[in-house]
Structure formats: structure tokens, C-alpha cells
């Protein structure tokens, strides 16, 4: 919209967003979508490496995983899951708004998404800080004696407990990094959406950013049970 007809002229008969090496806008959209999906495929393998480590050590050191999992704050974990799901909703609605050319709605939804994303990181930060306070960060100052005291029914080896928390921090840390990147992407999208760059004919960036955001949500959907819900049943 705000892109002037001058720009249009420079691009000959096709629209300003169609790059020269594509024949049609459809071809360009399909290429972009395929590219994004391939990228998400690589992301699956990226997290997959950690899932393998998780699987092996959870089989080996179930007790320590169970105790570590119990020590996480399930309320905050659940709230965070809900926050992310809400953000996925706003993203999905945002893509729809872009499709239909509702610029104001799109801007509002993008802002909401950013708020949810930041809320997620904030809550994550609170949880990490608690872990820091409890000396549950792996390394020289790691101390699992509180877990041994709190869960006398579970046989805990403190060094194996470090493996659980190593994985916890690696997995949630890299997930949080993806969230931060997502927030960066969405800030960019918000800026351009506010300027009215996206139209029902051209909203590929919104669509791709949305795919990325949903993917990060899906990763969390798995991380939540894998890290928080390992073993919560009443201790006998």
C-alpha cells in the first residue's frame, strides 16, 4: 500500500514484491514456503540431538530425572505452556488477518504475540533464577542435597542429577534462544505491518514467521512433559 507506484514501475509488469528470477508470484510463494519447511526440518534434527541424549540418560538415570523433574515448578511450567499456546493462537489469527488485509487487527495480534513471547521468557527467567538459588545449576556449586532430603524415597546420585539439570538447561536454554530469535522476527514483522507492507497479495513474511513461531511452540509442547512431568505420581 505505502509502496508507491514508482517502485511498481521499476519492476516492469510484476508487483514490487516479486523478485526478478521468479516467473510468478505463486512460484515465489511456493519456494518460500518450501524453504521454511525445510528449515524447520533441520530444526527437528537440531533438537533431535538433545532428545537422543535425553532418552539415553532418562533410561539410565530415571531416579535422578524423576527427582529433578519434581523440583521444577509445575505451576509455572503449565502457565508457560498456556502462554505459548495463546501466542500460537494470536499468530494463527494474525496470519488470517494478513490474508484478509486487516492491517490494524494484524498489528494488534502481532503486539499480543510479542507480549506473550516476552511473558514466556520472563516466567522462564523466574524459574531459572529459582534453580540458581537452589544451586541446581550444573558445575562446581551444584548441590542436590535438598533433593535428597526432600525425596528420601528416591535414590539420588548427585552427579547423575547434574546430567538431568544439564539437559534441562541445554534444552530450555536453546528453546529460549529460539524464542528470542522469534521475538526479533516478530518485531521486524510488526514494524513492517504497521507500515502497511503486507497485503492479501503479499504476506509471505507473516506466514513464514508464523510457521517458525508455531514450530517453537511445538518444541515446547514436547519439552513440557519431558522435563516437568517425568514422575509426579504420589511417592509411596
Amino acid at each position, binding site marked *: 500500500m505505502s509502496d508507491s507506484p514508482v517502485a511498481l514501475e521499476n519492476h516492469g509488469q510484476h508487483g514490487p514484491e516479486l523478485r526478478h528470477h521468479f516467473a510468478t508470484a505463486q512460484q515465489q510463494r511456493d*519456494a518460500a514456503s*518450501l524453504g521454511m519447511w525445510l528449515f524447520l526440518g*533441520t530444526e527437528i534434527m*537440531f533438537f533431535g540431538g538433545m532428545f537422543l541424549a535425553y532418552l539415553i540418560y532418562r533410561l539410565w538415570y530415571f531416579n535422578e530425572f524423576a527427582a529433578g523433574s519434581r523440583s521444577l515448578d509445575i505451576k509455572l511450567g503449565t502457565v508457560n505452556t498456556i502462554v505459548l499456546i495463546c501466542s500460537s493462537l494470536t499468530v494463527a489469527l494474525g496470519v488470517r488477518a494478513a490474508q484478509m488485509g486487516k492491517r490494524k487487527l494484524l498489528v494488534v495480534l502481532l503486539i499480543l504475540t510479542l507480549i506473550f513471547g516476552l511473558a514466556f521468557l520472563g516466567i522462564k527467567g523466574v524459574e531459572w533464577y529459582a534453580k540458581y538459588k537452589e544451586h541446581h545449576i*550444573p558445575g562446581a556449586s551444584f548441590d542436590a542435597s535438598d533433593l535428597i532430603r526432600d525425596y528420601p524415597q528416591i535414590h539420588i546420585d548427585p*552427579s547423575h542429577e547434574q*546430567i538431568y539439570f544439564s*539437559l534441562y538447561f541445554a534444552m530450555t536454554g536453546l528453546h529460549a534462544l529460539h524464542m528470542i530469535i522469534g521475538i526479533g522476527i516478530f518485531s521486524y514483522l510488526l514494524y513492517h505491518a504497521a507500515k502497511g507492507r503486507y497485503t492479501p497479495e503479499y504476506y509471505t513474511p507473516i506466514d513464514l514467521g508464523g510457521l517458525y513461531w508455531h514450530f517453537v511452540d511445538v518444541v515446547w509442547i514436547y519439552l513440557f512433559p519431558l522435563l516437568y512431568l517425568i514422575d509426579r505420581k504420589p511417592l509411596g
Partner: protein
Amino acid sequence: MATAVITPERENYLNQEYGIRSWLLTVDHKRIALLYLISITFFFFIGGFFALLIRLELLTPAGDLVQADTYNKLFTMHGMVMVFFFLIPSIPAVLGNFLVPLMIGAKDLAFPRINLLSWYLYIIAGVMMLHCIVTGGVDTGWTFYTPFSTAFSNTKVVEAGLSIFVAGFSSILTGLNFVVTIHRMRAPGMTWSRLPLFIWAHYATSIIQLLGTPVLAITLVLVVFERVFHLGIFDPTRGGDPLLFQHLFWFYSHPAVYIMILPAMGVVAEIVPCFSRKRIFGYKAIALSSIAIAVFGFLVWAHHMFVAGMSLYSALIFSALSYLVAVPSAIKVFNWTATMYKGSISFSTPMLYAFGFIGLFTMGGLTGLFLAALGIDVHVTDTYFVIAHFHYIMVGGAVMGYLGGMHFWWPKISGRLYPEWLGKFAALIVFLGFNLTFFPQFILGYMGMPRRYWQYPPEFQVLNVLSTAGSTILAVGYVLPMVYFLWSMRYGKLADDNPWGAAGLEWQTTSPPPTFNFDKEPEVTWEAYNYDQIPDPAAEEVPVER
């Protein structure tokens, strides 16, 4: 189609714009290919320099040329530079970048800016690696085995790891670009069954890059986390399993071998038909075997770990699967050879490299059978036998293929011809030097000389001397092409659009091609390798040069 009069002033991708900016900010896949060419050549000679120092050190049994720690850094950085900064980007990022759009009749790759981004990522990674090298280097071996890399090495492991992480990102983006381009950007009529086998090979390569590289990335990230934040995922003192690292590492690093060799196979599949004037034998078989290698290549990684302490039963599984991946490789060799049958064969430089490739790759592949055999592997793994084997594949195979491809497409890339007799001479030197360098290492390996040894018992000396002698010959063979390629850019004879009379869309445009590759969008109505329809330039009395 190959008779257009060449006017040097004709606008092409090289002379359309001038100035450093027009190169550094280019989104033209052909210019980016040249950027890659310059950068990987640089790293090739750095890695080669390390290799020569290694060979010089091994001239005598005593560790006398460099210190032990220096030696360890030399082989580490030789491996890292050659694998991640030369071999993996070599054919895909240079020839693939240049040729994939041309061969399928596209104006550019699907994501030109991402293509440029991958070059910049490569450069960032390269600068990090160089910085790491000049400020002390790293001594973990290119394999980064834990717990040595996480807890014992005092060198710049973090920097090297991050550098390779970034280089991996560059590799992923290249692969992603190729897959999307091959799916979405083919010219009308360019069906899958008409794709040149070079494209099939790059498609298979890209699959590996996409699905394997992220696993290496996360593995290196975890190593970095372990060093920097003291996480303990691979730490045996906390119950971590050092073998987990090896599983993750080889899940990428075994298929990575196919990232190096598959594109070279694609090059050979272009060269052999051209200089045999024949349609390639068994097109479908070769195309599918590329995909088969990409898939099976992921099922065999633990054959690097037969003595590492993993389960005996899974060793059996991985050994059997390893033989599976040998079948498609064998299919390719047989088909290339069969292509020559009843052909009309000329001995041009690219063809000599293709011969060299087939021969050396065959030997590399056959010695792979030794290593996949469990009982033999126990004895020869981690010895010079392995070194010899993978250099036959990577240097005898991938580098031969790369050089063959460079000679084949150089007229298209530069618009000039290199001196043919020098090309043949260099090819011969490379072949001889290579065999002299690496064949003795098979014997050394079976004798029991372990790899990564700075000093060694004296009975191994004679073979080591032979190997070092060969390496100097090999070095000459590698410098020569660089010299005459550079020379030809200014003084070489102007090349025809299609100097070899080759099939393929890339030969139907001008040499060098215009910025958008084709003056008119091509429409494909013929099958690949339609050599029956292409006149042989050499057959018309007039020799290649015009």
C-alpha cells in the same frame, strides 16, 4: 548451437558491473560461486600447507621438526580446514552454485540473498577459524572426541567449535537453496527424468546437508556448553557417556563423506558421457543410487565405533548396513565404465580426471569393504589404513572430481580455455603424486602404525618417506592448475559457448553466461545426454581451439 561468433565486449555476468561492491553485495549465483572459489582455494592451500608440515614431520621417526603439541594442532587444523572449509563447500558451493540454476534453466537460485548470506557465514566461520589458528590453534583432532575436548584440552576448542557451527549453518543454507531451486525453479519441460545427473547428485547432497548438519551443530553446541557453562552431558565423571558424543558426531560426520563425494560423482557423470559422445549408461540407476547413498549413508555411522566400546550386537547391525551403502556406489562405478563401451572417447583433461576419479574411488571404496568387516576393522581402525582409505575417497575422489569439474566448466565460468597440454600434465602429476602419497599408508596401517602419531617406531620409516615424497609431487600437481587457470583468465584463448560439444542447458548460453543466465527462457524438449543430436566439435577436423 556452438558456432556463435564471440565478441569479447558482449555483456556477461563478469563484466556487467565492476568494483568491489558489485562483488561483495552481489546476489548473482555465478558471482557468489566465484567468491566461494576464491575462498575455498585459499583454505585449500592453508590446509595443504598443514598437510605438508605433517608429512615433513613424519619423514623421520623422531619428533624433530615440530613440538608434539604443534603436531597435534597441525593435524587437527588440517582436518578441520580441509573438511569444513574446503571439501564440504568445494563442489556444491562453487560448481553447484554456478551450475544448478544454469543446468535446470533458471535465472538464479530460489533465494539469492540467502545464497550470499551463506557465503558471508562461511567467511565469518573462516575468519573465526583463522583467528583460532593464529592465536594458538586447537588440538582435539577434527573429531572433537569427549572428554578430551570438553575437559582436558587447553586449546581453543570453543572458538573452533563455534566456527564449525557457523560453517555448518552456511552449508545448511546452501543445501536448502538447492532443494528449493531444484523443486521450484526448473524450466518448462525440465522434468525429473531429464535432469542432469549432476543435479540429482546435488539434490541428494542437499538432503544430507539439511538432515545431518543440524546434529553436528547441536553436538558442538553441547561441547561448548560443557566447556563454558560446565554442563555435564558427556562428562564421564558425572555419569555421562563419552560414546554418546561419538554417536551424535558420526551421525553427521559419516554422511558428511557423502556430502563430499556425491557431487564429485555428479561431475563424473557429466564428463564421461561428454567425452564418450554417448548418453550415459543406466541414467535411472545412477540417479536413484545417488538418493540411495544419501539415505543409506545415515544408517551406518557407528562403523566408526567398532572398537569404541559399543554393543557387540549393534556393531553387527552397523557392519551389515555399511555393506548396503557400498552397493549404490558400485552401481555408479559400473555404469560409468559401461558408458564408455562403444563410445567415441577423447582424452581431454576433464576426462583424465574422471578416469582418475573412477580408479581412485574404486580403490577407496574397496578398502572401505575392509573397514566395514568387523574382524579387520578392529585391527586397522585408527591406523594409517583408515587415513589412506578416506584420502582415497576424499582426495582421490572428491578433489579429483572437483578438479575435473573445474577443467570441464572453466570455459563456461571464465570464457577462456586453459592450455590443454598443461592440464593433462597436471592431471598426471596429481594421479601419480596421490598414489605415491597414500598407497604406502595402506601398508603402514596394516603394519599397525596408529594415526595421529608425532613420532613412530623406526620400522615404519621407509613407507613414510615414500609418502612424504609423494606429497611434494602432489603439491606441485595442485599448484599447477591454479597457476594456469589464473594465467588463462587473461591470456587463454577465448572459449566457444560449447567448446566440448556437451549436452546440457549450461552449454546453450554464452560463455560466460549473462547475468540472468539465458537471453530467453529455455524450454526443454529433449532428454538429458542427447549426444546423438550434438555435433562433436573435434570430429570436424578442426581441433578444439578455434
